[in-house]
């Protein structure tokens, strides 16, 4: 199968945090009282890495590594180096491999940046989130707005051209005007990439509880829509192209390779608590998705006794794979190319799969474009379409597949 030869991405989940943000729905654990047992977590990650990458040793190449969390900038740089080295030893890194580390804007971690670079990290993503001190405090964060920007400046010194950071809009009490000001200020410090998210109330988070109990009142839907639209406009004015729902880049080179891997439906392997993987099993060619145990303690025990912390592994059917390809592909402005779709559809074309009546209607309404390029046909959302893409997906993705 074609896909089995494509490059693979590696995700490493480092679970600990010194503080827990109210809106975060990722698997995380507060730093234990007696401190983090760095050796233990690193050894567990290395063992799981070994178990996971070994079957893929032959014809594969690592296109990217992403250290997410949790707060991976709390890790010791030498441990990060060991993980990168072992990954490379198992499946060789591509020459231009992107190796990203998520970092907190707190001073102690910023000061470790050069060491991380020496460990092999070549891209840095900083969790700035907002510049508003009151909002930061209310979300449980320990840094101030000014620290966030200082961290970005510092990171740019260490990783020139390869720094990104997150901004979130839609916090309680935020007005459109304040958001515009915040974003303008942030963009003055930006490197060549920025992510802009709407605050999402994820079930099970403290924010979700506060929201249900009406302890926090988030901006009205219409205001949030304006915030999104203004973000697109302001980023464009600063030379950042909106290439994915929440991602903006100065040029194509600056786009996140790792994330593009997800959106293009390429294979990725995840290690660490709660990490997800999606790959073609080299033993039988079967498409598989798997997830690791989310609880850090239990994941550690499992890695130590069995060599991995897999919670479940499920084979992915043809229909699901095709649905996913469209769902992910339409998150990007470039859309999904027919030839890429054929990789997961067994050679069947995208227009045979989709509800083309709806596609044509939506194209007439200016939400989609369906074009014949020189190499391949391509379905892409317009800027307006991207904004309502969830409604579009429900309309155009079929429940069943005509040829299955």
């Amino acid at each position, binding site marked *: 199968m074609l896909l089995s030869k494509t490059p693979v991405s590696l995700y490493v989940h480092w679970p600990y945090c010194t503080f827990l943000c109210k809106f975060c729905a990722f698997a995380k654990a507060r730093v234990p009282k007696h401190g983090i047992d760095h050796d233990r977590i690193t050894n567990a990650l290395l063992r799981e890495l070994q178990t996971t990458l070994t079957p893929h040793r032959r014809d594969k190449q690592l296109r990217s590594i992403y250290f997410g969390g949790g707060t991976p900038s709390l890790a010791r740089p030498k441990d990060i180096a060991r993980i990168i080295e072992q990954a490379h030893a198992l499946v060789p890194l591509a020459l231009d491999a992107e190796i990203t580390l998520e970092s907190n804007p707190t001073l102690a971690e910023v000061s470790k940046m050069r060491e991380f670079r020496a460990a092999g990290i070549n891209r840095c993503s900083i969790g700035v989130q907002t510049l508003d001190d009151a909002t930061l405090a209310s979300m449980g964060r320990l840094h101030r707005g000014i620290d966030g920007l200082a961290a970005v400046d510092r990171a740019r010194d260490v990783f020139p051209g390869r720094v990104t950071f997150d901004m979130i809009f839609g916090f309680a009490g935020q007005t459109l005007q304040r958001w515009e000001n915040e974003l303008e200020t942030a963009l003055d410090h930006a490197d060549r990439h920025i992510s802009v998210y709407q605050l999402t109330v994820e079930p099970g988070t403290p924010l979700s509880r506060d929201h249900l109990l009406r302890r926090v009142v988030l901006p009205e839907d219409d205001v949030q829509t304006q915030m999104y639209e203004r973000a697109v406009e302001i980023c464009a004015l600063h030379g950042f192209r909106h290439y994915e729902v929440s991602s903006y880049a100065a040029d194509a080179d600056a786009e996140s390779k790792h994330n593009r891997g997800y959106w293009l439906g390429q294979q990725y392997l995840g290690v660490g608590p709660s990490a997800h993987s999606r790959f073609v099993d080299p033993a039988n060619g079967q498409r598989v998705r798997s997830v690791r145990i989310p609880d850090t303690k239990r994941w550690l025990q499992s890695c130590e006794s069995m060599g991995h912390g897999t919670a479940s592994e499920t084979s992915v059917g043809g229909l699901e794979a095709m649905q996913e390809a469209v769902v992910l592909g339409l998150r990007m402005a470039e859309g999904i190319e027919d030839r890429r779709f054929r990789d997961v559809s067994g050679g069947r074309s995208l227009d045979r799969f989709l509800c083309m009546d709806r596609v044509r209607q939506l194209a007439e*309404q200016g939400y989609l474009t369906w074009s014949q390029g020189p190499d391949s046909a391509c379905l892409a959302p317009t800027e307006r379409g991207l904004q309502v893409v969830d409604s579009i997906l429900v309309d155009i993705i079929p429940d069943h597949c005509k040829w299955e």
Partner: protein
Amino acid sequence: MYMRLRPLAATNLLFNSGAKSSSKQLFRGANSSRRLYVTRAPENNKRGEIDISSYPPERIRNFSIIAHIDHGKSTLADRLLEHTGVITKSGKNKQVLDKLKVERERGITVKAQSASMFYEHKGDQYLMNLIDTPGHVDFSYEVSRSLAACQGTILLVDAAQGIQAQTVANFYLAFGEGLEVIPMLNKVDLPTAEPERAAQQIESAFEIESDKILHISAKTGLGVDQVLPAVIEKTPPPLGSVDKPFKALLFDTWYDTYVGVVCLMAIKDGSIKRGDRIVSSHSGTKYEVAEVGIMHPEQTPTTLLQVGQVGYIVCNMKSIAEAHVGDTFYKDRHPVEPLPGFVPAKSMVFAGVFPIDAGEFDSLNESIQKLTLNDSSVSVHKETSAALGQGWRLGFLGTLHMDVFRQRLEEEYDANVLITSPTVPYQIKFTDGTIKFIQTPADFPDTHTLQDFVESTMEPYVSATILFPEKYLGCMLELCTTHRGEIHNHTYIDETRVMLKCELPMAEIVTDFYDKLKSKSQGFASFDYEESGYKTSDLVKMEVLLNGEAVDALAAVMHKSMVVTAGRDIAKRLKEVIRRQLFDIIIQTSANGKIVARETVKQLRKNVTAKCYGGDITRKMKLLNRQKEGKKRMKKIGKVELPQEAFLSIMTKSQS
């Protein structure tokens, strides 16, 4: 002849244990403190049948109890049954005759239940037949037929609440049937009781002297021992002769899974026994009698039933639709003059019933069939709606009847249904003299037909009685006027209570008139009505359009004067429930081709998941699948997707 579940009856018949179990109950009864009043039922023969031929008409009293909801009718019935040993006095007898869950919940009797008691009075044995009557106006025809089986009735009035609209309506029904009315005040031992005042109301409303009124408390048993003696003394024995040919009034029926239809009849002349062949005057159909007996309180077979008695007959009748309440039966080859007052059931309220999930059509079909087995007064027609798919148009006797039906569908059959807002049977009189009944808005003529071929449109009216404390007079008058009512008169039945009589269009009372009446009077007003014929009325069909396309299930026929208010209200409520879509949705209501209201649901501007977490797209896919499932339940009108809630909100909420 509506709804009744009779699981016990079937068991009794199958195992022939009815007589045994009732004698066991009698035995327990005989040991109770009420022994004095209890008379052993006659012995049973080898077949388990008891012989009641020794009870001629002069030893029989057929009576009923008429009362407003909650005035204690069922409790009094329980006490009388305990008193005569028909049921044991266990303290568990809570409204034995109200068998349906909805009856006990709502404190109403949907279905009449009857019971026979044996009672000794001044040295003589009496067979006392308590004929229960449905307690609601929807069933007034059934009430009148049940009353036609009686010679006397207890008028039971709550001493604290005084007489209510239903008391008035039922009194006049009983009076119209020529029944002896025996007034009683119930709950006289309650601290809030005002027996003098209630007695004064009875005197002024019904011209009954207050010193003839019995004071009782059915709950505690106070004065209950005087009830049956009063009934015996005041109620005339049934007329008729055992020598005349058999003649019986069918006044109640129910369906039994094992034996088919069971008929309750009052024997007006002659006698009947197992093996006789009887004929329905209405249909001419012949039946062979398989079993006769009395309700004691379950079916208890007897050797025969004779003049003056009231009992059940099993006669191989297969379908409840063959049994018409009010029908007269006679013996084959001995025809008799039918009893007066027979009217076939007619539907006064119609509503569309649709499965919420189209996949449940077949199971719902089965449930409706089962329910109508026991309720032939529900008329059933298949109906197809572009918006709601396949369903039925059901006709009911009234809104309570409809509610009860819906509740039984939901509770007993676990059905998930959508019921369109009720409509009344309008009439269209064409210029060529023909008359058409409108059962559904789809039947209403279009604008051109209306102009060229219709002479007049008519709607059914009711004459209503409303009773309330005088301080609500203003708002009650206003309520009637805003519902297009014509006030006839209002009279004071005592110093503080007013009785208001008015004519109201039936369409005005089928939705939420009763709820408004209750809320505006803080629950103090009571209301009852009877049909009063058709009147010419300027009717129009209001349509609801979504982006120019009519939604058939939301169309309604109404008086011209209501169109603007109703149209605006519906458009506004639709706007609240229709979700934004990828285009503007224009909601319009129109009548006679003219738009009366317009609202816009602006197109959706943003719907996108901000982030797919760390490669976890399973969540996103689950969301997508949930949305797709939700979409399947949407009804599509052109391009517009309408959620179920849109229909529910229009159909269930009242106009504000």
